[in-house]
């Protein structure tokens, strides 16, 4: 523990260079020896270079170095994270004791902003830098999920645990009804698209992440900036050295909750019989055939003649993830190269359900001349997903796995639920390849004036193979096997050129200007082929020509869009006290109507560094006191290409003994009604269609106290989105249902707080804490003309609303609405006040038995003694009241421990299927068990969507506990060894009855399987 190994450099290569140069230039030189230390510890691998030459060496494991230098020469000594020191070699001095000082942290960090970077202290907008240190030990296919709770105003929902699954990402709430609500993700200056599943990039390759929240920082991305921007910089080689590192993590996942299935078949059968008898139907488990299936009687079950199959055990396994990364980086004065390889293998909880990817990243730069640099960044990734995740683990435990002949047991001719049959006979595999590549040239024409041009290319292709054997579903059975092959290809070419100019005048006017333009061409195409009717299932989809050619289905799509932009930014700092930023972007998009192709997105911000005012300095309280205010306009493109054009549809018509193609006005633009059975027709052109625009105010303050050991950032914002892209209804007599218009407003307001403290900060011991609090209030303020928008009106309050989101079959409708004056996705339905008890007047009458004892006691809100549409009201809100997180990081010498807690508070969750769950069924109401909580069993009950199914989704999760130990090594070839272990999702505090309350933005809980607690062990080696 006597050496500091935090950052390492290669000595041998430099030493090699050094000795070569030494051999050439040796004349009248003395041997100078010395030691480089910091905080009393020797620094290993610090560079020692003779100023003005390329001659140099680096320190050994004791921090010692030896170099030949003339008297009078100046040695430049550097180490990453420390201020470079220059030391003159004086005649006679043979041993130099050089102490490096740590660079002042944070305040002078350079942060990446759109089209450039700036000192953190000079920021005028609301920008958060994510501390990569906190998440580097966690294994994940993409980085977004790891950002949960790491930045104020950033909301991350890890809704799926399937292999390779991404996350839902929001910055400062939802602001679009039909367009995307996902932030733009920008990798090394290249806008890639929506955040959520950036699996092309290995999280270990990421150097820094910045979150642009307010309009002043995101408006530079114009029509794509309204949802905020996430900037990602990948690692590049630095510091004149060679580094090799290898790291590996192995993760295993275990359920945090028991699977909710029937474990006692007799109880299951009794419950099923009771359910039917209560509904006035004959019992099922009576030893009779029903619909071709034999259901044993209770006595037969009791006698143990039937099995009690543990289907979950057959379907599932322990999830295992392996993640290995190797990197090589090397840099010299002229060139730098960074190569990284990654293999990621995620074996999901369902057998055969997996995701694998391999990733190669190659970044390089080369100085062609002193003032001219070429850069390239190339990320290639290949992934393969085998999907086998819908197996019916809750299948009837009475059904055995095999029948008497040793074949898989099926209960009837129409039983297609056997998980092993599906697992063995369904193929669903997607392979993809992605390339993200950029080439840039930067030329510093004169000092302070730079021009940069960058060409970006993103290419992505997938191939999906699907085969459903004839024994795997009713449709596949009727069609004698269904084979599919689906391909997609997309590419994005972006050319970008901008000039930056930076100069300080008269020591007090600091000016920087940026101006540029870009052109983006985006293209996507798909080809899908389906074949039916195979003689047998032997070949799967390997030979689709062997199907029935008359039943082949082919479909292909193509779309392209163009975005032409001009943008500029002006930063002006006066006396290092008053800061001003103005940005402007003009975007022209092909997606919009011919009368409104262009949109203009200005922003402005001012900031005042109070701590640089003499009167404030006199107080001697604040190390930093900066106030910020910004306003700006940004946009959302919202829709797919071709929505403004007139569009015909194609159909088939049976004529002359074959299917003929029919073409004409109107195409299927959507669906409505139960099971989406009714087509909505679109296709009228709207030449006036334009962007959604978001204007945002932001007021913020940055404070630092106690020699910067306590740092506070607070922001208040008010974000108002207008011209929402919506489809409005047309009169039926137009022959169309809907067309796109700009109509409606949404408001998001919120408050964000970040507290950062270095509680203990000593040489061997440190403890720091970060507390983050975010609160967002979302409100739909306008949905356009009530009539043409097809808005419904609440009977009791006159509230206007429209249904949104997805339909739940349990309630035969959509639970969520957009209601004026309420947050997006609020739940609209009935109220339930317990269970109707025997002899009790439920307060309403019903023709289908809803008023019987043991049923849910709906509340007759309008007092007409009936329960109908007019008794509904807002019964829940899936948007959290606030979210908060706390990260504690502790270090004692080489041991580091961190604990991360994340909480979501005050959100409602719809427990879809609550009363179907075995755990709920067994607690049912019966005349002998007059509970007021669980209704009686009734197989034919139709459910109205009510607050009975709306549960509190608040939770606090011990999200991550990480322990790491850096083993000091003195071997020449190895620089550092770090071992660590962490537990993700260690424990969750919640009242929620289901597996886990972390669900999507619409607050609908789908069941699935319990959340995994993931145990990871890892090893990092550096050479």
């Amino acid at each position, binding site marked *: 523990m006597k050496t500091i190994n935090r950052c390492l450099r290669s000595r041998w290569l430099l030493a090699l260079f050094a000795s070569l140069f030494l051999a050439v230039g040796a004349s009248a030189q003395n041997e100078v020896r010395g030691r480089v230390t910091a905080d009393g510890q020797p620094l290993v691998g610090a560079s020692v270079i003779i100023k003005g030459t390329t001659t140099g060496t680096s320190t050994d494991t004791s921090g010692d170095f030896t170099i030949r230098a003339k008297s009078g020469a100046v040695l430049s000594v550097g180490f990453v994270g420390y201020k470079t020191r220059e030391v003159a070699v004086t005649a006679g001095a043979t041993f130099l004791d050089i102490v490096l000082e740590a660079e002042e942290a944070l305040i002078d960090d350079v942060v990446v902003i759109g089209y450039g970077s700036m000192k953190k202290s000079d920021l005028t907008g609301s920008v958060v830098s994510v501390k990569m240190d906190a998440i580097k030990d966690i294994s994940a296919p993409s980085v977004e999920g790891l950002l949960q709770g790491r930045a104020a105003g950033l909301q991350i929902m890890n809704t799926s645990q399937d292999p390779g699954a991404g996350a839902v990402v929001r910055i400062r709430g939802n602001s679009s009804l039909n367009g995307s609500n996902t932030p733009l993700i920008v990798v090394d200056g290249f806008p890639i698209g929506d955040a959520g599943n950036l699996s092309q990039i290995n999280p270990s390759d990421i150097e820094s992440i910045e979150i642009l929240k307010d309009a002043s920082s995101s408006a530079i991305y114009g029509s794509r900036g309204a949802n905020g921007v996430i900037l990602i910089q990948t690692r590049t080689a630095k510091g004149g050295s060679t580094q090799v590192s290898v790291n590996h993590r192995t993760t295993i996942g275990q359920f945090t909750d028991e699977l909710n299935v029937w474990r006692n078949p007799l109880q299951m059968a009794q419950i099923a019989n009771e359910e039917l008898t209560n509904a006035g139907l004959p019992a099922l488990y009576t030893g009779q055939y029903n619909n071709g299936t034999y259901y044993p009687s209770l006595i037969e079950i009791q006698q143990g003649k039937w099995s009690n199959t543990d289907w979950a055990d057959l379907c599932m396994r322990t999830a295992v993830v392996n993640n290995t990364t190797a990197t090589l980086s090397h840099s010299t004065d002229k060139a730098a190269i960074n190569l990284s390889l990654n293999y990621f293998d995620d074996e999901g909880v369902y057998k055969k359900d997996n995701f694998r990817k391999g990733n190669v990243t190659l970044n390089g730069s080369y100085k062609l001349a002193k003032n001219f640099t070429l850069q390239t960044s190339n990320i290639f990734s290949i992934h393969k997903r085998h999907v086998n995740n819908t197996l019916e683990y809750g299948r009837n435990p009475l059904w055995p796995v095999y029948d008497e002949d040793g074949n898989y047991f099926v209960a009837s001719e129409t039983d297609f639920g056997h998980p092993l049959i599906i697992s063995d006979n369904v193929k669903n595999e997607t392979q993809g390849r992605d390339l993200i590549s950029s080439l840039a040239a930067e030329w510093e024409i004169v000092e302070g004036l730079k021009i940069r041009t960058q060409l970006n290319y993103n290419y992505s292709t997938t191939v999906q193979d699907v085969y459903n054997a004839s024994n795997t579903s009713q449709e596949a059975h009727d069609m004698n096997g269904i084979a599919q092959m689906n391909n997609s290809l997309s590419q994005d070419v972006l050319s970008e050129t901008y000039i930056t100019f930076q100069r300080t005048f008269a020591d007090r006017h600091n000016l920087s200007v940026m101006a540029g333009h870009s*052109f983006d061409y985006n293209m996507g195409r798909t080809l899908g082929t389906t074949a039916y009717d195979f003689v047998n299932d032997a070949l799967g989809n390997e030979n689709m020509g062997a199907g029935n050619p008359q039943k082949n289905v082919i479909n292909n799509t193509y*779309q*392209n869009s163009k975005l032409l932009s001009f943008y500029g930014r002006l930063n002006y700092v006066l006396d290092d006290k008053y800061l001003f930023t103005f940005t402007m972007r003009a975007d022209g998009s092909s997606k919009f109507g011919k009368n409104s192709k262009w949109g203009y997105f200005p922003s402005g911000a001012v900031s005042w560094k109070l701590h640089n005012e003499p009167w404030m300095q006199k107080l001697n309280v604040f190390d930093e006191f900066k106030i910020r205010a910004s306003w700006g306009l940004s946009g959302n493109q919202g829709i797919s*290409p071709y929505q403004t054009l007139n569009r015909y549809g194609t159909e088939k018509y049976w004529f002359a003994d074959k299917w*003929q193609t029919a073409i004409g006005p109107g195409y299927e633009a959507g669906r409505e009604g139960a099971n989406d059975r009714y087509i909505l027709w679109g296709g*009228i052109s709207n030449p006036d269609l334009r962007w959604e625009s978001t204007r945002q105010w932001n007021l913020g303050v940055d404070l630092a106290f106690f020699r910067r050991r306590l740092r506070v950032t607070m922001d208040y914002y008010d974000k108002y989105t207008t011209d929402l892209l919506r489809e409005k*209804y047309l*009169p039926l007599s137009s022959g169309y249902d809907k067309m796109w218009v700009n109509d409606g407003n949404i408001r998001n307001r919120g408050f964000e707080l970040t507290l950062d403290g270095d509680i203990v900060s000593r040489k061997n011991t440190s403890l720091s804490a970060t507390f983050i609090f975010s609160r967002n209030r979302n409100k739909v303020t306008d949905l356009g003309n009530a009539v043409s928008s097809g808005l419904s009106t609440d009977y009791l309050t006159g509230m206007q609303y429209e249904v949104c989101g997805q339909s739940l079959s349990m309630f035969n409708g959509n639970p969520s609405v957009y209601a004026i004056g309420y947050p997006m996705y609020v739940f609209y339905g009935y109220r339930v006040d317990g269970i109707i008890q025997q002899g009790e007047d439920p307060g309403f009458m019903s023709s289908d038995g809803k008023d019987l004892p043991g049923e849910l006691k709906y509340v007759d809100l309008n007092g007409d003694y009936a329960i109908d549409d007019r008794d509904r009201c807002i019964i829940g809100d899936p948007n959290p009241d606030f979210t908060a997180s706390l990260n504690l990081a502790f270090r004692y010498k080489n041991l580091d421990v961190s604990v991360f807690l994340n909480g979501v508070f005050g959100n409602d969750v719809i427990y879809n299927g609550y009363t179907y769950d075995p755990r709920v069924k067994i607690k049912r109401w019966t005349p002998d068990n007059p509970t007021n909580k669980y209704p009686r069993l009734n197989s034919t009950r139709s459910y109205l969507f009510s607050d009975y199914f709306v549960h509190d989704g608040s939770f606090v999760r011990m999200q991550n506990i990480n322990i790491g130990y850096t083993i000091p090594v003195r071997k020449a070839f190895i620089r550092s060894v770090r071992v660590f272990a962490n537990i993700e999702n260690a424990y969750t505090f919640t009242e929620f009855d289901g597996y886990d309350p972390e669900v999507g933005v619409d607050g609908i809980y789908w069941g699935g399987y319990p959340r995994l607690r993931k145990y990871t062990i890892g090893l990092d080696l550096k050479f």
Partner: protein
Amino acid sequence: MKNLLYIISLCGLLTACDLQEEPYGFYSDDNFYKNETDAESGLLYAYNALTFLEYSRGIFYIGDIPTETMSPKSDEAGDVYQLENWIAGRETEQLKYYFKYCYIAINRANTVIDHIYNSSALSETARRRILGEAYFLRAWNYFNLVRTFGVVPVQTQMVAELSQTTPPMATGLDQLYDLIFGDLARADELLEVNKVFGRADKVAAQALMAKAYLTVASSKEHNVYRYTEMRREPQIMYDSAAYWAGKVVRDYKNSYDFDDNLRDIYDVNKPTGPEHIFIMPIDRSGTQEGNYSKLPLLFLPSNNSVPFYIRYGNGDLQRANGNGWGVFLCNDEFVETQFSTTDKRRTELIHRDIYDVSGNPIVPNQVKGYFSSKYVDPDFIGERTSARPYLIRFSDIALVYAEAAGPEEGLAYVNRIRERAGVTPLPSGMTVDKFREAVIKERALELAFEGNRLYDLRRTASVTTTDIKAAGLSEAEAAYYPIPQREIDLNPNL
């Protein structure tokens, strides 16, 4: 290096200047209607609007369910319940969708007419035929609108922009019938006799003309609401109906005639039989509902998903889907009191018992009522069948002729139909009124469950007297369904 930068920048600028969007992968006004095949394909699109289930099921939901002839199974809720019990209104989905698809079909026909009316891109023969069929289709859909909803908005041009989406209300029934008769007259002039499965020809245009004239004639005669305002004279209307129906029943015997074998009319494998003047082209090889049909499921009872057999008098067994929904059941009273016991239309086409493959009755028979076998496809694939709605049948037009022309000219045609059904002929010497009453009753039996009955009741102002559930309705309520709420809300020009 400087040059390189300029070149890159310049390339960006030049390629970018054009933000115009070119449609790709879909047809639009810009790239369609360039030649004859386009026009043909556009016409098929207009035909295909009739096959959407919202429209095609409406034939029965509206034409039969509200009448005394057909009733859904007792637990059927929603639209069917409302229609059956005459409580359907502006919000009833089936009515809304029926209304919507009439206009979708009209817009598709208008698009054909607008594009090829003066087009030189296609041969004169093709242009006449396609235009004629488009006129026929427009008239067909307006006729459906007028007899279901009465006075409705009029749209005679293709809708291309927002300003055209709110068509004005017709000034009265006269304006709508002017449009229908005008379109059919043009269709008659443009079209040739050309019997093709799934398409309309000259004879179809004449047949529809006869039906429309007869509707005006009898409605006016019976003082049906709003028909009283019409300027047309009932007798002239009857004469016109007789003229056009007379052409249909007399002039094209090679192509269109009675089918002497009653069951052949309903054989899914004989859609080109002599009876079929216009039939919906449905085939079980289709990939989506509309292309294939699930009509048998609506008509047939459930046998717990096990296919069953229907047995005919001669011992024939016909295979049928076992997973019927029993929504369109024949009304017991109608079957038992209106048909004579020897009427083949009852004995051969209405059933209550079901059989297994060997012809033995299935016990216990869970069938809850009478069901019709007019829509059975023994070669069904799962739920996919070729069962088709009969849009215009020769016997329909023969009865139109009889009703319009009166007993002297018409008796032979009615009796030809009665003879085929195995029932005694009507006597000669009936008064015109009695005879017309008898023809209407004959239509109820012959065209039962073919989407006809409601319109016969309406044009004779006998809805409220025939169906007890409709008793007490106002004249207007009995004669028309209200215009759907969404249209009222969104169209300021009503």
